């Protein structure tokens, strides 16, 4: 049950990271010279989105 709950909880962060990655790839393709800065921003954005998934991961062990 807990595993199923975590699977549902990981759903939204997965989409969020996918959108981050999509936007970073599109941006890099359109303007390759700022790809480095976009990658940094992608990592930061993905980290904030991933935080929700990680809290779910902790809740799996706590509950």
């Amino acid at each position, binding site marked *: 049950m807990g595993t199923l709950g975590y699977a549902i909880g990981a759903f939204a962060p997965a989409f969020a990271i996918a959108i981050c990655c999509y936007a970073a790839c599109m941006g890099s393709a359109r303007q390759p010279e700022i790809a*480095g*800065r976009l990658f*940094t921003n992608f*990592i*930061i954005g993905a*980290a904030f989105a*991933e*935080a929700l998934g*990680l*809290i779910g*991961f*902790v809740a799996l062990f706590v509950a």
Partner: protein
Amino acid sequence: MEAIEALKEHVAHLPSSLGSKYILGNSDFGMTNYVFWMCIVFVIVLVIVLSVSKRLTLIPTNKFVNTVEYGYEFVRNQIGEGVIGHGYKTHIPFLATLFFFILVSNFVGLIPGCKTPTGTLSITMSLAAVSFVYFNFYGFKVKGGLGYIKSLAPHGLPVVIAPIVAFLEVISICIRWLTLSIRLYANMFAGHMVLGVFSLAAGIFMMTGIEMVQPLVSSISVAWVLLLICMYALETLVAFMQAYVFTILSSVYIMLAVSEH
């Protein structure tokens, strides 16, 4: 089918084999295998960095020295200057230490028989605690005690809303400690679990095939080994990425703590 049953039985023991074990002393005062490997990683990092720093030359001649120097420059230019910006030089020693320590400990775990120190929550949590204390300390140092607390809520908010925003900000700062540690631990632990399952599967399918005289079952283990090699390559990437992500997030938090707005 016997192979899958045997695999299930063996996989159930895998998480406990990745857990901490006391190799010295007991729970009152002792040393777990992860702490032991952390000490080894300390020694490796010290030896690498000190020996390289003695041999630095203006024109690079030694390939190893040049590689380590590239790693340092990567931290300084990509992580420090790119994220923190003005006044980044103060934080480079801290960020480079974090980066090299996490990188070496992640890579040590990829060697069969070795344990990755970052594969246990206690060590990643203490690393995150160091980073947490560091960025809060610099926030207080640069902005002053009251200034840092004031900077939690943006300028010009109505008096009623400011405490609520500051409260949410305090929660998000405290969660940074948790997420930094869990991210590193979960990635390392999950990676080693996947490698463990695949290598167990390769061995068990091979043994069952030989015992039951079924060449087809044995030949499946070749596919497991190929999959294992692919996952190993992915884990090598993850080992680098997690060191990079931990360092860049620490520098982002430092930047957020010391920037003037």
